[in-house]
């Protein structure tokens, strides 16, 4: 999906949480959305998902395969009808829990809601199974949602998003609470989907290893954008995150690897660098 952000800004509780973002994530690729806590990543994802209406600027998407649209002029995402939007854009939230005793199949079937008729019939009954198989979660289909591990849950959430058959996939910290091998396989999977994807990430080394493009937010503004190799430099990371670091080159992939130094005086721990000796699949 062609996605363009022009001067997007919005307030939450009186503060400009997102303050004038211009960006063009590359279509069909994985874009990392970086920035410290409170930089506006989650709010920006909600704006891109069309769940919040920006107070200024616009999130523009291509008109899509809408037969009524002869012109290909981009449209603001919040002007798309809700159901049509939900068929094109899927959002995975950071914290997603349920009190409902659902099976895995039930959870993935939620992704079909934008396609269902008023009586609940799915025009494509095989879509859930397809999404489960695509996300390599078919073996979990009959399991109770509450019995899954964190990694399995995230895999099922991805299957639910795939069941929406989105052209744009938005992920809010998808690797949170996952072990390192699950983090690597999840991001590799998402990268290889060929779907335009924007993922908020905390782990700079994961972003450096998997993203084609990164957007670095700081205080609601865009501090930098571009290929990780060009963007993730010590000076920028020092300015945005306030950390002292060196950027090395991965011996096998050639991607940047960020090595953090201990903070001089601040006793608060910095994010530890995950092992980088395993080449991403």
């Amino acid at each position, binding site marked *: 999906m062609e996605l363009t952000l022009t001067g997007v800004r919005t307030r939450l509780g009186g503060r400009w949480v997102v303050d004038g973002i211009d960006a063009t994530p590359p279509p069909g690729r994985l874009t990392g959305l970086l920035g410290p806590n409170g930089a506006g990543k989650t709010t920006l994802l909600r704006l891109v998902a069309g769940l919040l209406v920006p107070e200024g600027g616009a999130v523009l998407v291509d008109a899509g395969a809408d037969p009524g649209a002869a012109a290909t002029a981009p449209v603001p995402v919040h002007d798309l009808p809700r159901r049509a939007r939900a068929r094109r854009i899927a959002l995975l*939230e950071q914290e997603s829990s349920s009190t409902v005793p659902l*099976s895995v199949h039930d959870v993935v079937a939620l992704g079909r809601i934008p396609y269902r008729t008023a009586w609940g019939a799915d025009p494509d009954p095989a879509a859930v199974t397809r999404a489960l198989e695509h996300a390599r979660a078919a073996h979990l289909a009959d399991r109770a949602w509450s019995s899954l591990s964190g990694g399995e849950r995230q895999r099922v959430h991805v299957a639910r998003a795939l069941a929406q058959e989105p052209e744009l996939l938005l992920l809010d910290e998808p690797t949170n609470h996952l072990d390192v091998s699950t983090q690597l396989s999840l991001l590799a999977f998402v990268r290889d989907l060929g779907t335009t994807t924007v993922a908020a990430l905390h782990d700079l080394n994961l972003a450096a290893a998997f993203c084609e493009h990164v957007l670095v937010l700081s205080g609601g503004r865009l501090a930098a954008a571009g290929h990780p190799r060009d963007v993730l430099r010590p000076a920028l990371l020092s300015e945005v995150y306030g950390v002292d670091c060196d950027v090395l080159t991965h011996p096998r992939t050639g991607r940047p690897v960020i090595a953090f130094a201990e903070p001089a005086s601040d006793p608060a721990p910095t994010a530890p660098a995950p092992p980088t000796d395993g080449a991403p699949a």
Partner: protein
Amino acid sequence: MDRAPRRPPLTVLLAVGGALLVATVLVTVTIGPADLAVADVGHSIGAHLRIPGARPVPVLLDAIVWELRLPRVLTAAAVGAGLALAGAVMQSLTRNPLADPYLLGLSSGASLGAVAVLVVGVGLLLPVAAFAGALAALAATLALARTGGVLTPGRAVLAGLAVSQLAAAGTSFVIFWTATGDSYREILSWLMGSLAGATWSSAWIAGGALAVVGVVLVLSALRLDAFAFGDTSAAALGIDVGRTRWTLMTLVALLTGAMVAVSGAIGFVGLVLPHAVSVVTGPAHRRLLPVAALTGAVFLVWADTLARTVFDPRELPVGIITALIGVPVFAVLLRRGRGVAWS
């Protein structure tokens, strides 16, 4: 409960539930001080509905069936169905497994209206006063929840609690100040929920509200499913979260108000039955809602039959029976590990 259980098809569940409900109505009408046969009941109903082949039954017997027991049984069925439906929808809308139809202060408001009639002698029909009380409580709850902030289910629940407490205090005050022995028993029976006063008009009020609101709720099943992972997730699935929640909550409140108006606040049906039914149907509302309604109907008819016969000639408020059955069922559900998802 590691593996999700296999679930029977909806058509089977509806057929079994429907047959059970018809049998329940025919059988429970025969139960009571005057001995009747199911055939008599069938013929009496058949004659009134002008079904060909129905043979006339003696006038006295016909009056017992048609004027006394049938309206009460049908009211119980409609109220049970409505409460189970309202509870299931409320639990999904607030994402709170402990939600019940009375969550927004409705039962306390209705009680205050009813007590005003029973004790103070306000010149209104009791169901009208109860319904007005329920609506006033709903309006107060929504107004309070709306002040100075976004409407969230959490705020609505807290506002409902406050309104509930206020109305309960009002009710207690009125009783304390004015009630005498006889009116006290009448009030108590109303507060515990009772179908003793059910007439054909009660049956029409409860049945009508159920038919109108029930259809809308069942048609909203998919939108309710979308709330499983919360508001943002529902919005991302194309649901207008705000409008859906408040429309459906208001409809549930109107349905509940109609039920409370004819029967008082019968507890546990709306809280426990949706959980029990979802063990069989699974959580999809397209399956859960109609089956919960049928189960609620059958359950409350039997509970009311017990209430009016166990200590014959004295009647127990049916709310005591539903609590006596509801609490152990709730305990069993907790033991079965459905509490895992409730943590």
